[in-house]
């Protein structure tokens, strides 16, 4: 019994850690850069496939390949914002208009990135085996890669939280999120900060993708499911609240794990139920104002 509980708990935390990471990324992109990035999952997919390619073609292990995939995905995100979204932002008379336009642009990005991935990697499901040996914790057995995944999700999430709360650039990001005009008057280059946030959001998605590829199978169309989950986590945790995204991520992961144990396949249904109940009870989210 205890083994089963532990089993469910660890599996839930593992999923929760990844959910939290990708939701934090989306939170940055929407909360600060005001882009509701429907293509968020595509960056997760890109991270996963870059990791897969580097491992199967060159034998570069996933945790090392993060050093290659992370800057790459960040740069793609940064340049996308600088070129595409900055242009949309300048040509939009209001924030609401920009949000609408940028969401449409993200739909376009979703199809483009997905089809480029299908063309270059093929549509079939892929996977690889890395550190798959079992580890024994209090009688329950887990694949080592899952535990490492959880560890990394927590480390990256905390590092990111410290970056936002302690550093000069982190404070500038939060200031820009709260009042972009006032932030400009403090000497903060707003268009640079917004591009940085979009890039960092893509980076979090990329890291999430690498971690997902270590424990799960991947395919070019995997992104949308993760985008949906990230959106639910974002709303459940409270829009714009980074700690909220963490709480929401782990909550969803645990619920998903429990539901999967009882009835596999109903996890997504459970997420929507939580989502709707929360919208009825506290529309601003767990840690939202």
């Amino acid at each position: 019994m205890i083994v089963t509980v532990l089993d469910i708990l660890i599996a839930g935390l593992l999923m929760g850690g990844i959910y939290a990471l990708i939701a934090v990324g989306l939170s940055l992109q929407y909360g600060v850069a005001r882009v509701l990035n429907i293509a968020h999952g595509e960056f997760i997919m890109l991270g996963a496939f870059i990791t897969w390619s580097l491992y199967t073609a060159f034998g570069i292990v996933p945790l090392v390949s993060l050093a290659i995939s992370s800057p790459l995905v960040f740069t793609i995100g940064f340049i996308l914002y600088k070129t595409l979204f900055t242009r949309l932002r300048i040509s939009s008379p209001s924030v609401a208009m920009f949000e609408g336009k940028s969401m449409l642009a993200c739909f376009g990005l979703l199809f483009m990135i997905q089809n480029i991935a299908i063309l270059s990697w093929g549509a079939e499901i892929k996977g690889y085996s890395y550190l798959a040996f079992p580890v024994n914790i209090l009688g329950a057995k887990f694949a080592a890669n899952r535990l490492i995944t959880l560890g990394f999700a927590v480390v990256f999430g905390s590092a990111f939280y410290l970056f936002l709360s302690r550093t000069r650039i982190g404070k500038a990001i939060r200031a820009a999120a709260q009042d972009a005009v006032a932030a400009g008057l403090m000497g903060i280059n707003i268009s640079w900060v917004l591009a940085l946030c979009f890039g960092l959001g893509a980076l979090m998605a990329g890291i999430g993708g690498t971690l997902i590829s270590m424990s799960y199978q991947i395919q070019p169309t995997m992104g949308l499911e993760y985008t949906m989950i990230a959106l639910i986590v974002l709303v459940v945790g409270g829009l714009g609240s980074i700690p909220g995204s963490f709480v929401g991520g782990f909550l969803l992961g645990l619920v998903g794990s429990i539901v999967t144990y009882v009835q596999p396949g109903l996890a997504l249904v459970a997420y929507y139920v939580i989502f709707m109940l929360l919208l009825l009870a506290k529309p601003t989210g767990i840690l939202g104002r």
Partner: protein
Amino acid sequence: MLDVNRIDAFHGRIQALWEISLTIGEAEIVSLVGANGAGKTTLVNTLTGLLPSASGSVEFCGKRINGLKSHAIVELGISHIPEGRRLFPDMSVRENLEIGAYLRRVWKRKEETLEEVYRLFPKLRERQGQLARTLSGGEQQMVAMGRGLMSKPRLCIIDEPSSGLAPIVVDELFRTIEGLRCSGMAVFLIEQNVQQALEIADRAYVMENGRIVIAGESKRLLQEELIKKAFLGM
């Protein structure tokens, strides 16, 4: 130090500023007064890059600054303390002040500058851990002023610091502004509170319908019949 030469500015297609010219010298306190809607805030926003000017020039220490983005203007040494304070509501008082020292050259010495600001506004030291949105109006204005001083500006533009504050708080605030002169900083004070704004200033400009209508020594303006009638209710 600041030379504004015949600038025009528009809100959409409506002209809001007409050929505004003014100057501010080193360590000088200059007030800009006028009724609500005269275009005072529009003028200030044009100076610090929040609103583009259609024609004319703005020079700061000999360098043309119109057309520059706000963040580049701050870099040159102009601090704009905006109307309505615009604090970062979900950050603590201390963090609001710290972000005022965002510029790389002042960030390194932000602890010292923070001490100076706390000496100027001792109340803020007590409140440093509190979120900005939980402060009273007077305290919020202190944070806004402190935040603006954290970048060690050579010119500080203060837009409507007294709005919504109790008279006793306003007196204290004006004394602090007057004291800024000692540090060698120039102050451009935008106010509806004409009497007090003229009392602490060296010179003043009066705006009406987007134009500067009167300019001169503030001592002299306090005596002027037109100003007495229009603004001081005498």
